[in-house]
Each structure stands twice: as C-alpha cells, then as structure tokens.
C-alpha cells in the first residue's frame, strides 16, 4: 500500500480572536504541523473572513505567499448573501470567486447573522449550486433540519458539513439517505467505528478528511483514517480523493 495523501478540508490561517497559547502558530508553522502528519494539501480559510469581515479576510487569504510551504494551500473563501453590499451577487460573485482562485466556499450564517432560508440565501445558494463549488458549513452554524431543507431546495449544491460530531448519526443518517450531495468532514466524526459504519451504509464517496487545525491537533484526525478498517481505495478517497474530485468538478475556474 502507498502512503495516504491527506488533503485537509478544514484549516484556518491567520490570527484568531481568542487563541489558546498552545495553538497560536504562525501560518508557516501551521503548514509544517500539517505536513508532519502526512497532509500534502489543505483547503484554508482566513480567520479574519470568519471572525471580522469576509471581504477583508478573503483578501488577506489571497495575498498570502504560500510558495515554499510544505503543504499546497487551496483557497476557501467565506461568502454571504449580497443584499447588504458586502459581497457581490450572481455573475459578479462567480467572477470574484474565479479571480480569487476559490477552490471552495464557506458559509458562517450564525456568526455572520444571515438566514439560510429561501429569502435570505436563495440567490446565493443558487449561484453556488450552478457553479458546483464545494460549499462548506460547520455544524455549529446550522442544523440537520436546515441542511435537509437547503439540499431539498438546491439539489445540485455540494454541501460539506464540517465538524459533524460523534453523536450525529441518528440525525444525519436519514438526511443523507435523501440528499445525495451532502458530504461529511471527519475531524469530529469520532464515534466508535463511525467511519466503518458510514462506509457500509453510504459508501466511501461522501467522507472528506479534515483537521480543524490549528485549534485541534491533527493527530486525532489522521489516525481514524490511517487505522480505518475499510479497503485501501476507500481510505484514499476519504483522505483526499473525494475532496479533490469535488474541487475539480467546480466550474469556478472556467471563464
């Protein structure tokens, strides 16, 4: 078996509002820490896009010089609805994503105080659906009922639920049975044999490896995949293949 190539779907760069001292790493140190765990690629957002202002944080993410880092950084822009004029809409949003080389986007509706309902986010979600760009949302920013509703209204949207917890299966399984394009990031999906049971139930194509670095230690994220009792093809899909495929399937890069 070859070495697993891990592609982290959930990394945050930049200074945070209230970091614990142990986790206060520079961006280059974060990259080195990921590389030490066998991670070769990372989809990163900027903390300022989450904790201050999406436009500002996305600009800072795009201006990072990551050449020479031991991990290839792919950009995950934080977006929100256009109505207040903070980010562009529709075709202009597509241009914005392309110009900033967005491999994925992230929504933070609770932190940013917007609705995921049809009135609040319908147009944004329709644009994201059209572009097929992976759309990340952390579970503390939404609920399974809300994701179920969003996926029903936007069946083409590629939703990646971040930090799905070890207690989620009773809520999550029925939603995943109905909604084929919801994907699960694994950093907090640490129930006993949760990966094995997920793969038995839904196949290996919907699990996406992530670390939630630098807040959480990547060792706890890589080990469940390294030690998963699933076949090698499933492991490599979870470690990075699924995320790679999702990013390649997006049309954002096309002019």
């Amino acid at each position: 078996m070859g070495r697993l190539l891990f592609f982290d779907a959930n990394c945050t760069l930049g200074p945070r509002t209230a970091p614990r001292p142990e986790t206060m790493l520079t961006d280059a140190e974060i990259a080195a820490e990921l590389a030490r765990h066998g991670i070769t690629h990372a989809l990163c957002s900027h903390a300022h896009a989450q904790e201050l202002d999406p436009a500002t944080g996305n600009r800072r993410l795009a201006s990072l010089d990551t050449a020479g880092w031991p991990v290839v950084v792919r950009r995950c822009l934080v977006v929100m609805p256009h109505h207040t004029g903070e980010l562009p809409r529709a075709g202009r949003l597509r241009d914005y994503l392309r110009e900033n080389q967005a491999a994925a986007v992230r929504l933070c509706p609770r932190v940013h105080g917007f609705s995921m309902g049809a009135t609040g986010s319908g147009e944004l979600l329709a644009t994201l659906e059209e572009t097929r760009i992976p759309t990340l949302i952390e579970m503390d920013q939404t609920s399974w009922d809300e994701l179920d509703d969003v996926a029903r209204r936007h069946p083409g949207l590629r939703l990646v639920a971040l930090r799905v917890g070890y207690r989620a299966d009773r809520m999550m399984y029925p939603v995943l049975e109905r909604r084929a394009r919801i994907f699960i990031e694994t950093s907090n999906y640490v129930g006993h044999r949760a990966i094995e049971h997920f793969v038995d139930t839904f196949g290996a194509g919907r699990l996406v490896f992530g670390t939630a670095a630098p807040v959480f230690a990547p060792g706890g994220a890589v080990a469940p995949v390294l030690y998963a009792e699933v076949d090698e093809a499933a492991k490599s899909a979870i470690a990075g293949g699924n995320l790679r495929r999702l990013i390649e399937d997006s049309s954002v890069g096309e002019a």
Partner: protein
Amino acid sequence: MEARSIEARVLAGEALRDELVVDVHCHMGPWAAFVVHEGGPAGMVRTMDRCGIDWACIAPHAAIGPDFGGGNDEAARARDEIPGRFIAYCTLNGRYPAEANAAELDRCLAMGFRGIKLHPAVHQTPLDGPNLRPAFETASARELPVLVHTWHNDALASPAMFEALCHDFPGIRFILGHTGGSPEGADQYLALAPKCEHVYFDLCGSLMNLGMIERIVDAAGDERVLFGSDLPFIDCRPMLGYIGFSRVSDESKRRILGLNAARLFGLGDR
C-alpha cells in the same frame, strides 16, 4: 535495523503490538443520547486489535446510567468471556445510600474488580458526598485507582474536592477523567499535580487542542499521564493519533500508552 519511532508507526497505521497499551477510560454497550456502533465486548476488541491496545479498563454505560449493579455484572461477564482484555471498574453511584455503595464495592472486589468509577455529573451528586465515603475508606486502604469524570467548572467534582479527598484518603489513586478534553479543564485540574501525589491525569476527550499533551506532561510529569479514550462512547483511534504525534519523547509515550497504567492496575508485561 533502527527502531522506528512511535510517530512513524502511527503514521503508517500500524497496530502497536509490541508495546504495552492500556486504555484506562472505557465503557461498553448502548447509551441513550446517540447510537454506539458495535459497542459490545467483541466490537471493542476488534477496534482494540486494530490499534494494538492490550487492555481496556471498563465501566459499562449501563453502570454509569441507571443500573450500576447490572452494569458491573456486565463488566464481569465481558472480562470472563474474552479473557485477558478487560479490567473491570466497580461503578458506584452517590445518589444511592452509603450502605448500598459499600456493599456493591465489596461485591465487585470479591469478583476481582481493580478500581472504582464515579460520574458525579451524570449522577448529579457531589464527589465528596456522604454516600461515597465508606467506599473511599476501602479504596484508600487497598490503594485502588478511582476514575472520576471531570470537566471544566464541574462543581460536583471540583479541584478543591479532590484536594480535600486526597488528604483524607491518601491511599486512593485518583484518575481525573478528561484532563485532555478541554484546555480550561486542564488549567483547573493540573493545579492539583503538585498538591496531590497520587492524582493521575487521563487524556480522554472527543477532541484535543493542539499542544495539550505537551502541556499536561510539562505540568504533571510523564509518569502521571494516562491513555484514556472513552471507547466505545468515542472511538479510541483519535487518541492513539494525538499521543502518537505529540511532541514528547517515545519514552514518555510508552509511559502514557501503558507503562503507567500497568503500575497503577498491577499488570505484568505481556
């Protein structure tokens, strides 16, 4: 050939078969709040084998929940049905009378149980309440490990309570559950390290912040830190990764993974 580091072996996904690995914080069986896949003894051993975990110290969920006697029986059965893999904690419940707890401890010790498990938060009863004190007398006289669920700001199992109890019952080997589970909890409970000689810190938690193991080893020394995972409430594989990739020496990792627990529970090398 040069011996490979534990980190390299975890990165390769290898079971640590030639190391002594003891998981001091385990449960067993179903739990109310969520599905526990394959939570019985066979499922647990399957996961333990994948990692190279020799021993799991168990307090079944039933015992933590509404049936401490039945849960203790379940622990004894598992230990006897799959020999050499399970060490049983006697779970007590401070909600029940002192005589009932003392009698249950006697019953468990007669069955060969090796420690006590307490969960003041679930039982909604303080660790230092009167119903547990007779059991503490026995535990102190026998120098038993007593695993206690702790969490930051846990008023029912506070650092001040441990400080008083380790003074009153100096023979008890308190294992503080979940020291690695939250940085705030570590801040609060690690302050006990210099005050109580026989307090141990279990790393267990569903997540661990970057740098936590290094911090706990710095504060408590590597001889008082224990591998605990909450198996099968949570899978044990994340904790193997946290320890495997932590920036402490392999000698420290071996102590944390099993050598310290072997001393505490009186296990020989296998």
